[in-house]
């Protein structure tokens, strides 16, 4: 299977990274990513205060909270997207397996291949559907020849639930697809480089309910093989798709727990007030 080859190629080619101990939660669940004492500053303004959060392996973790609460900022720390903002400064540690991703020896490009991202607005490249998905594997040198690349493109589109809809027009522009299809194309593009974690920043906010349902269904399927962190403004969506929910407010992580607990019996009054629509 070509995907396995892709994985092999990546492990073989991976740079040596600083090692730590494997992470687990207090109740013994494997942890894929762990943020400890994470502070983020935009210039003088502090956006996150001492956030500590475990992202469980092969779980969907939803980050919720009112606008400006720091949830997207935290999400963007997880693959160092904040590096692109000049005035942004991050302190604390964020571990991915045994690696501190802010360690100077970490190759950011490789990190972002392991921790992929899907954005709020579908943003396909102005290229063909095929090229959109093939781009990542090609620049990361994950395939050896055209037929392997074809396989990766087809498998990724299949995993994103889009293959059947586009298989006869792979050379048409990705921008010609509907909004929901474009978003699934972006998910296929993220999957194509075999990431371990997929970050989603409000992936459904620009989609209609049917397209949203398809993406949610997809998230549930992807959970088998990937760790997913999703920022969403839709409380119902967080309740539907995630197993764990973290509530942020004014740059603090207020409460993190099992999704069903958060939505039936939250511990913190602020969480309760937010999810029941009392402020926001």
């Amino acid at each position, binding site marked *: 299977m070509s995907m396995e080859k892709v994985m092999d190629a990546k492990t073989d080619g991976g740079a040596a990274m600083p090692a730590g101990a494997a992470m687990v939660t207090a109740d013994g669940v494997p942890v894929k990513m762990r943020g400890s004492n994470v502070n983020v500053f935009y210039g003088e303004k502090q956006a996150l205060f001492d956030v500590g959060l475990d992202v469980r392996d092969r779980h969907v973790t939803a980050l919720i909270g009112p606008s400006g609460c720091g949830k997207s900022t935290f999400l963007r720390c997880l693959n160092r997207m904040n590096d692109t903002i000049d005035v942004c400064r991050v302190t604390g540690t964020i571990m991915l397996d045994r690696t501190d991703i802010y360690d100077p020896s970490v190759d950011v490009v490789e990190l972002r291949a392991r921790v992929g991202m899907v954005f709020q607005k579908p943003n396909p490249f102005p290229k063909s559907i095929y090229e959109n998905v093939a781009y990542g594997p090609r620049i990361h040198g994950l395939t050896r020849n055209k037929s392997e690349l074809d396989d990766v493109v087809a498998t990724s589109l299949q995993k994103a639930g889009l293959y059947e809809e586009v298989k006869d027009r792979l050379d048409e522009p990705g921008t010609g697809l509907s909004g929901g299809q474009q978003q699934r194309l972006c998910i296929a593009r993220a999957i194509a480089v075999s990431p371990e974690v997929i970050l989603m920043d409000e992936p459904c906010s620009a989609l209609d309910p049917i397209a949203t349902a398809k993406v949610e269904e997809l998230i549930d399927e992807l959970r088998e093989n990937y760790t997913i962190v999703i920022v969403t403004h839709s409380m119902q969506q967080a309740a539907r798709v995630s197993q764990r929910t973290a509530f942020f407010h004014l740059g603090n992580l207020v409460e993190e727990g099992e999704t069903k607990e958060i939505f*039936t019996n*939250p511990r913190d009054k602020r969480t309760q007030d937010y999810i029941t*629509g*009392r*402020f926001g």
Partner: protein
Amino acid sequence: MPHTVTLFDQELKAVAGRVSEMGGLTEAMLSDAVSALTRMDKDLARRVVAQDKRVDALQFEVEEQAILIIARRQPVAQDLRDVIAAMRISNDLERVGDLAKNIAKRVIAIDGTFDSKKFALGVEHMTELTQAQLKDVLDAYANRDEETAVSVRERDDEVDAIYTSIFRELLTYMMEDPRQISICAHLLFCAKNIERIGDHATNIAENVIYMATGVQPMDDRQKQDETGVVAEPSS
């Protein structure tokens, strides 16, 4: 803190208000039904039967409004628990109304008199306890008072114990004089109905606890109703 959408608050308040109204009505029905029973007042009994229609109508309204809130607002956390508790509690209160009505109907149906101070005292005592349970649990609902709800839930044993003693007594009368069997059977059902109203008060208490804390009480309480054991033939 109020909801950003004020209409949502009004809707929740309206549902809770109807549940409380049902509570007041069923309390009065129980009290009137037992008065009718101890005084054999058939007019009062007829009024109790008529009251039950209002209780049924209220329960229908609570259910309809709760369904609308779920469909329109997708309540979560405290709001969700309020709506679910209101639906469940109105269900219990509707049954309390039915049971009170059933007592009243038996009063109308009973032919003849039954003169037993002991029975009357027992039923009255049981009613007092049940009524206190019902009143306390309805107050606990209105005030989200977990503590009172817990105590109501633990007190159900007393009612069960009195019911067991009334059951034994009526059984003795029936054995002594078979002509009394018909009336004693009616009275036995009346006592059973009061005892079951106590059970509904316990259910309501459990839902108040759920509403207030988010935890569904699970542990089994001690059972005092031993009529199942007494009914076995004994030498």
